[in-house]
């Protein structure tokens, strides 16, 4: 009975501790808790994973508070501030602490055809915390126009009177604010997609591993077929088959569905493998002998034992989803404007003009890289921590 606490303890060990109080309920709780405790202990050891966890949490906070963090309407276009380079924030001036940016004026150079922007050292645009800006619904609860930062006098939209921390895109839209919104969409695409493939993977993998026989063979074939078809044709076919009158939001979900439809196979294999090996584990056999019902075995005994693996797998699947979203956008299949996602922003930067003259548009790649790195390290850490033999 003690095998669950210390499976390494020799069977014939005569010096076992005092038996625990009767009742399997307590025993299980302890068993599971111990496993989680162990996991968190091991996880904390992985410093990079800890740092990554913080980064991931930060990014999800950005996603949640995207509108609050953005200071400019991400859809507001303005030709006369097209492709403006990032502005420098000046924190101190002669009056002491006075964060501001310098006003910028631009015109197109007739020879180079570039828009050239000049700053006006005399025209300071002060920055304020909790400034007024465009109106939005805060967490979907109430309407407000407060933003974390903004210009003091709510002057708003002209190039002379506004701030562009990361510069602007071709249409003169503020890149920083667009990036905030893109973070929201791209990170949630990942989550929804992973949740869906998780569901499919656990369900089909579980059924396959549990029942075996014809069902197993069928599902294995399904996995093999799905994996054998190159992803791009599948994406294209499925994307094109989407109902045409769907709104951007619905298409967004459809895209995640498409990505997850392809992503579930890996997980299904993992789950199936776990089920197969667990079926023969001592404690499952013991539970079976003890007359526990099958469902009870699955949920009380088997699932907890690989839940940590699922979580790790999920964390590792997320960056793949995010990368897929950008790739889909590149192919013109994923999220398309006016939706703002990382893929859409990256696609905007995918031209020679950006490389040559407006490299700040490439800044979009930075959060993508950071998040993907963070998720990978986080997943790595979780997996290392989840390994029961660690």
């Amino acid at each position, binding site marked *: 009975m003690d095998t669950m606490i210390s499976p390494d303890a020799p069977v014939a060990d005569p010096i076992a501790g005092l038996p625990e109080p009767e009742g399997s309920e307590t025993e299980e709780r302890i068993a599971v808790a111990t496993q989680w405790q162990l996991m968190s202990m091991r996880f904390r050891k992985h410093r990079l994973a800890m740092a990554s966890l913080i980064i991931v949490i930060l990014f999800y906070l950005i996603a949640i508070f995207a509108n609050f963090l953005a200071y400019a309407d991400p859809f507001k276009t303005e030709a006369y501030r097209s492709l403006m380079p990032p502005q420098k924030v000046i924190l101190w001036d002669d009056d002491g602490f006075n964060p501001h940016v310098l006003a910028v004026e631009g015109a197109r150079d007739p020879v180079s055809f570039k828009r050239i922007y000049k700053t006006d050292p005399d025209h300071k645009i002060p920055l304020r915390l909790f400034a007024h800006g465009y109106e939005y619904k805060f967490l979907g609860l109430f309407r407000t126009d407060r933003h974390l930062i903004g210009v003091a006098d709510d002057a708003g939209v002209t190039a002379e009177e506004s701030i562009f921390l990361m510069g602007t895109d071709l249409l003169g839209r503020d890149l920083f604010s667009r990036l905030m919104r893109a973070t929201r969409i791209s990170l949630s695409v990942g989550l929804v997609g992973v949740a869906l493939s998780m569901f499919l993977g656990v369900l089909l993998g579980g059924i396959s591993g549990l029942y075996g026989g014809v069902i197993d063979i069928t599902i294995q074939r399904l996995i093999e077929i799905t994996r054998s078809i190159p992803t791009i044709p599948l994406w294209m076919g499925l994307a094109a088959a989407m109902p045409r009158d769907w*709104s951007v939001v619905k298409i967004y979900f459809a895209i995640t569905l498409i990505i997850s439809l392809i992503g579930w196979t890996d997980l299904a294999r993992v789950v199936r493998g776990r089920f197969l090996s667990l079926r023969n584990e001592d404690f499952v056999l013991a539970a079976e002998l003890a007359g526990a019902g099958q469902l009870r075995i699955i949920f009380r005994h088997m699932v907890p034992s690989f839940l940590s693996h699922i979580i790790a797998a999920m964390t590792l699947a997320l960056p793949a989803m995010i990368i897929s979203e950008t790739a889909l956008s590149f192919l013109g299949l994923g999220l398309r404007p006016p939706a703002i996602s990382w893929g859409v922003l990256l696609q905007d930067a995918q*031209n*020679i*003009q950006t490389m040559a003259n407006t490299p700040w548009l490439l800044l979009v790649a930075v959060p993508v890289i950071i998040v993907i790195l963070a998720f990978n390290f986080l997943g790595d850490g979780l997996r290392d921590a989840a390994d029961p033999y660690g």
Partner: protein
Amino acid sequence: MWHVTLKRVRLLIVLTILFVMLISSASLNAQGGGGYIGELEGPTLVLDPAQWPTEFSEAPMLAEKVAAGDLPPVVERIPSEPLVIQPLDSIGEYGGTWRRAFVGPGDGENGNRINASDKLLFWDYTGTEIVPSAAKGWEVSEDGTTTTVFLREGMKWSDGAPFTADDFVFWFEWMYSDTRITTPIADMAVQGQQGRVEKVDDYTVSFVFPGPNLLFVDLLAGDTLIGGGQSVRQSRGTSYGAYAPAHYLKQFIPEVSGKTEEELNKEATDAGFEDWVTRLHFATDWQLNPDVPNIGPFRTVQPINTEAWVVERNPYYWAVDTAGNQLPYLDRVVFTLAENPQIITLRAIAGEYDQQERHILMTELPAIIENQETSNYTLHLDLAFNGSDAVYQFNQSYDADPEIAKWLTNADFRRALSIGIDRDQLNETFWLGAGVPGSAVPAESSPYNPGPEYRDMWSTYDPDLANQMLDDIGLTERDSDGYRVRTDNGERLRLEIQAVASFLPYVQISEMIADQWSDLGIYAEPREYERTLGMTRAANNETQIFVWTNGGTELLYLFPRHAIPVDPTEAFMGPAFAKWFVTNGADGIEPTDPNLLRIYELFTAATGLDEAGRIQNAQEIWKILVDQQYGIGTVGQSPAFMGVRIVNNDFANIPDRTCIAQHCRTPGGSHPETFYFTNPDRRD
């Protein structure tokens, strides 16, 4: 002999001068004299036989073959009445390879346009005057029912076989009239009645119609199914274009070949084709089949479905320069495959192309300008004549949502949306200030332009008036976000703008317009579709607003599809009406809008009208189109479509500015056969 009156020539000269002045002033305004827009210029034809050269010379590459006995001497290869071209700057030197980009087997037009002189008639470099090309002249009968074309005596196919009236008769009888091979076209008909081709003598061919067809000469010169020329009209499964190499193609057609259909089918399947028809279409395709004889300056030596499409000089080409040198000067043109526009831009700014005007995007201009010196090329910006590179076509036959349809067909609604667009913003952002904002009417230089006031009509930014107009037509209610709501259920009125990626970033342009319209309380959502999907949707009458160029509409009768719904494959303004129009009412939806019906009437009547009458009708059509704002024009007369031209500094006889228009077959109008390399190293 030629149907060009002195009066008309004078008119054209005046118009051209006016036009050049207008354009240069417009461009000065637009970009303060960037220096990239030059004077419209090009080679001219020497039509007076007295000035023709009497001695001929040829390329060293051919001279070798003559010496080896593989080719007859140059005098025998050139017709007795060749086309004599006065090169733009200087008599050229033989040799060299023109390096260009192409984007795949679908980009045959890339080469077709270089071979564009295989048309019977063509336009001069201004794109306003019809001049001879493969045919030396033409004549229209008094009653207008017969158009006669005069061929060049001694002219030969690229394999040396004579090019005669028999090739026209063969085309008409065996390739055009055979329903197994193709279907009849409107270009060969008058009021639905098909015309026919008759041989007068070996070098004279008549096109005879059951009624007056005064437009036919224009059709022969235009980029039309009948006049487009062999390169474009007999490639990719089509067999139009007025003539065909009878001596070569006969072997592929039952009856004429002396073989039965079964025998030919057997041969075809053995060769990997579906049946004899597919094999015939392959055989006629100069892009795919290096064996097919043609009459253009170049013939294919490595087909288009490879990494590099290579075309080489036609040893029997029938044009010479004023010094008697057989054209073309260049040995060959090599098109290298580029899978995406970035590669083309990158290679272009690295100086890897000698002249490239296709597939170069305007928004990349600064990068192109920057690298001019280091990569030894010069940028030219050529302005188009069409009124708008981005027309928002409101589908008048839309019927999926009655409420939406109600507004799409409301003239004031369209007008309000049109004046709700800040075109200067669009011009600055997407045309880098180099376009002309305004309505969709063709350039003021065009005879069809209805008058300068139509450039601004309903096309000047006035958001207050727009708001007022929308209120007045009953769209007064708004939702909490400030958007106007539908009158039937009170939900937000949502318009969908359908855009497909192309030469211009239509999606982004639409995003800017949607943002501007949001100030009017109009919610419009730009939706990007993959091109096939977008076009299919449009053809199926599923789009509300479609954005596309109106390129080609400057010659309204030759290329009406982007202005009037007459061809269902691209009738964004009313696909169901177009279907109704082409099927004579058998299919599609009949329009009830009197203005649209009037447009159809004016358009149909034009075939039987003389030049002046046609101009009058065209102007009236444009007036209605602008007043009704079926298609909202934005910015046009710009270099956006094939007008960003990168030219190697060693390349000569290159016009400063060239005509970019559908009918000019850019760069065909500047006769690429006269281009040559000044740098001897490049001529090897």
